[in-house]
């Protein structure tokens, strides 16, 4: 038995590496006589970025239907299959039920309210296209913030139908690459209109014609020719495109999130064993958890590094990537804390925050390309690297302290595991993480001020996002000074740390939701609901923490109060 306990972490480590490794190394291939695996690697230009057709197809299908593939009775149709059908045989494609519509009034408007589905075909919507368009025009005259749900829904539907048309008419993305120096990407249609004999456009045209005529051999041969042409002129972009397709298929963040779930379960069982006084098993399970967190962390790092390579930018460029980064850095803190505390809590926290951040990121990324181009003023790798990364580390640390606070409350109230020594060691860790959060959020905020001074001429402009950053700094300072002044002890520290979650979430997302100021580029709409849910849940945690300690299941509070922290006596 002892043997198994010692071996388990190693077995888990090897299994996780094998799982992640085979997922990473063997991306799924499309099984088709047409070489669609090569076709989807073709670089194109959309929304100002050079990317593979695969990304365009996935993002467009995601935008229109909320999924990256179509489920039919005959099985699943991948995004690229859908896309090539759309551009070569639109008459078939318009019958595919891809348009997701949820709003009942929109369904009534389209005469589809009797159907028991949520996805509809372009053919079904085409008949009422004019009415949809008219309603969208009416809605677009209302200011964005004042629109009602119907108006928002009709605008979304109209935008999806326009995207569908643009794709099928080949006006977007730009398919003809720059083949001479100084040239830019061109739209396939406009090139053919200007010069029907244009060799580059003709080469692509033969590829598409071969597909339409259902000639796999001709398709594969023409595709190879076209690909070699592109490769010889924009080899760097072509290489990146191929890598991006692999990245799309592998989806490292999804692999990591699965690993986090399993790691979390190991952690929970480990804590349970500690509760049941089976220390050997507890130790073994917690070590297994740590091993899995390490593997998940590695996979996530590969994902982040891939994004950096593909974008040619620092890791954080929008809300989506900030969520990924917060998760990533929290894991680092979690692993450090784990090493210090040996309670397994750091690992559990790491897997929870890692998983939650990836879910948040996944939902933020639903709207389209997560590697979109940036507004002109943000176009500065230096400041993106320094200010944005440091401030996001500050967010991560503040969150981590807050989540440790929650763990403290839950363990204390619900279990008997939180003895005096553990409680002390947890609050020490929370205190340490808050110190770290104070430094990083302060430095990050200051760097933001310097960037603002460089680009707008004022160090501090009282802009919503700047204020949000200042709130985090001030809140952390408040906690530290209250602690130094002896105004709060362990439980107070824990409670204030949990409230720090609310402040951080508000600064991170809430300020964007106001839609004011220079930083309002990350505006998200449905997130308002989730932010409110989060705030309420944190307040609930704090009220649980308010339960008199005599009623906590962990009875450490009955011991005499701990001495005043050493730092106050020095002052």
């Amino acid at each position, binding site marked *: 038995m002892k043997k198994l306990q010692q071996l388990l972490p190693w077995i888990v480590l090897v299994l996780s590496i094998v799982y992640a490794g085979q997922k990473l190394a063997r991306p799924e291939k499309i099984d088709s006589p047409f070489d669609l695996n090569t076709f989807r690697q073709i670089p194109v230009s959309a*929304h*100002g970025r050079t990317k593979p057709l695969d990304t365009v197809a996935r993002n467009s299908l995601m935008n229109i239907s909320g999924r990256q593939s179509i489920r039919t009775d005959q099985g699943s149709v991948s995004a690229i299959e859908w896309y090539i059908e759309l551009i070569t045989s639109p008459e078939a494609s318009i019958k595919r039920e891809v348009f997701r519509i949820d709003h009942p009034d929109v369904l009534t408007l389209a005469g589809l309210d009797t159907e028991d589905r949520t996805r509809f075909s372009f053919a079904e919507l085409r008949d009422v296209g004019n009415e949809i368009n008219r309603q969208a025009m009416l809605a677009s005259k209302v200011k964005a913030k004042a629109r009602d749900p119907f108006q928002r829904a009709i605008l979304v539907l109209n935008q999806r139908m326009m995207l569908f048309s643009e794709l099928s008419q080949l006006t977007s993305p730009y398919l003809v690459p720059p083949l001479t120096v100084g040239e830019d990407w061109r739209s396939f249609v406009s090139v053919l209109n200007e010069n029907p004999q244009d060799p580059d456009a003709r080469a692509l045209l033969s590829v598409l014609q071969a597909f339409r005529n259902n000639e796999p051999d001709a398709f594969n041969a023409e595709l190879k020719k076209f690909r070699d042409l592109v490769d010889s002129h924009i080899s760097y972009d072509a290489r990146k495109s191929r890598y991006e397709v692999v990245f799309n298929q592998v989806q490292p963040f999804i692999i990591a999130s699965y690993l986090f779930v399993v790691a979390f379960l190991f952690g929970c069982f480990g804590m349970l064993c500690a509760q049941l006084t089976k220390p050997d098993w507890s130790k073994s399970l917690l070590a297994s958890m740590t091993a899995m967190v390490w593997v998940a962390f590695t996979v996530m790092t590969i994902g982040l590094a891939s994004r950096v390579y593909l974008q040619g930018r620092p890791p954080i460029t929008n809300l989506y990537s900030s969520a990924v980064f917060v998760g990533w850095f929290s894991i680092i803190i979690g692993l450090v804390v784990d090493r210090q505390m040996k309670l397994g809590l750091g690992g559990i926290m790491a897997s929870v925050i890692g998983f939650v951040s990836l879910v948040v990121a996944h939902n933020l990324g639903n709207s389209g390309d997560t590697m979109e181009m940036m507004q002109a*003023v943000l176009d500065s790798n230096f400041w993106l690297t320094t200010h944005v990364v440091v401030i996001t580390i500050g967010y991560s640390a503040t969150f981590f302290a807050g989540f440790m606070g929650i763990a403290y409350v839950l363990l204390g109230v619900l279990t008997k595991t939180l003895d005096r020594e553990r409680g002390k060691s947890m609050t020490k860790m929370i205190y340490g993480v808050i110190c770290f959060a104070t430094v990083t959020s302060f430095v990050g905020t200051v760097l933001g001020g310097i960037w603002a001074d460089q680009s707008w001429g004022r160090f501090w402009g009282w802009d919503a996002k700047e204020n949000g950053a200042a709130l985090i700094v001030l809140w952390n300072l408040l906690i530290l000074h209250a602690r130094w002044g002896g105004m709060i002890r362990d439980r107070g520290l824990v409670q204030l740390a949990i409230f720090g979650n609310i402040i951080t979430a508000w600064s991170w997302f809430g300020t964007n939701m106001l839609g004011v100021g220079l930083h309002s580029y990350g505006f998200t709409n449905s997130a308002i609901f989730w932010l409110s849910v989060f705030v309420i849940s944190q307040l609930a945690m704090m009220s649980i923490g308010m339960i008199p300690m005599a009623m906590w299941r962990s009875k450490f509070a009955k011991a005499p109060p701990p001495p005043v922290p050493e730092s106050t006596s020095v002052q």
Partner: protein
Amino acid sequence: MMIRKLLKPVASLKLTVVIFALSIFLIFAGTLVQVHTGIWTVVDQYFRSLVVSIELQIFVPKDIATIPGSIWFPGGLTLGVAMLVNLIAAHAVRFKLKKKRIGIILTHLGVILLLVGEFVTGFAAREGNMTIREGETVNFVEDIRSSEIAIVDQADPVDDLVVIVPEQLIETDTTIVSGLFPFTIEVTEWMPNSQMLGPMQAPESRKGLADTGIARELAALPLPRANGVDGATVDAPSAYVTLMNGEQRIGSYLLSVYVDQPQMVVVDGRTYWISLRFARTYKPYSLHLVDFKHDLFTGTQMARNYSSDVRLVDEGRNVDRDVLIYMNHPLRHAGETFYQASFLRDDAGTVLQVVQNPGWMIPYISCSIATLGMLIHFGIRLVPTLRRRP
């Protein structure tokens, strides 16, 4: 000893925490209120004031509930000074100059400097705009938050004689008299913010309020002052005035910042040019816009970059050179900094923001000191903790 006793409560950590809490609430409210109110009004009312009246409505969206009433709250100036006093008092009373405390002392020194810097910026910084069309040379900065009536006499072949009537003197039903020009200006209507309407758009009541110059084609309609909602943060004043030469009526005019060209006034055979414009400050240097570029990402309407290729000439400083001003790359010259801020329609010209802030270096210095202090303070404590394996 006496001073110590007095300072002790002022230096308390409890007070520090209270100031932090009040500041957090003030900043939170000052952020929420920006949904309804323009940033400049908010900065003046909330962050650079002694007290502020915070309307309770800002915490709840209007469509959920209407909440009347407001609370008085200490403003940013009060809290900033309180923080400064608390900090200085704490060092006078509690902190001893010990090696162990060096980090904290440096941090606090940095924070003190930072607060001082914000006061300097609040009182001394000047912001203005320079709007230059391609091919044009401009040697003045406009303050888009105040306006003036300018009367120009071009009789002298070398120098123009310019008389300025600042906005503060202009009000409805006032008469402006000056020995520097031979007519009086009777202000029949002063509009601090306005809208310009064409002959077809103007309602009957606003037609024919003046009979000379552009007033024959255009009419002005008063608007409430810009509060930042709908993106309008700048007031565009207009005025209806009647010019009198003694008892003799010269004509009634519509003056407006919307109108670029001054309007002609002829008195006793002499020509004067009158206009209402944003308040100008003339500079010893000039900027000539060679080219304005507005690059887009391929196939999108999304801006990739804005840049202004300008020629900077300052004879007094022996400067005559080409400069490229673009995003994140301002020009610093003669204590002023020029930023790419905006542009004219159809990319016809550029709008540069010109900032003069004698305290611009203070945040850089203070933040470096504070950061160094924090790193030392927490470094001294954290590193041994991390090294000590349990």
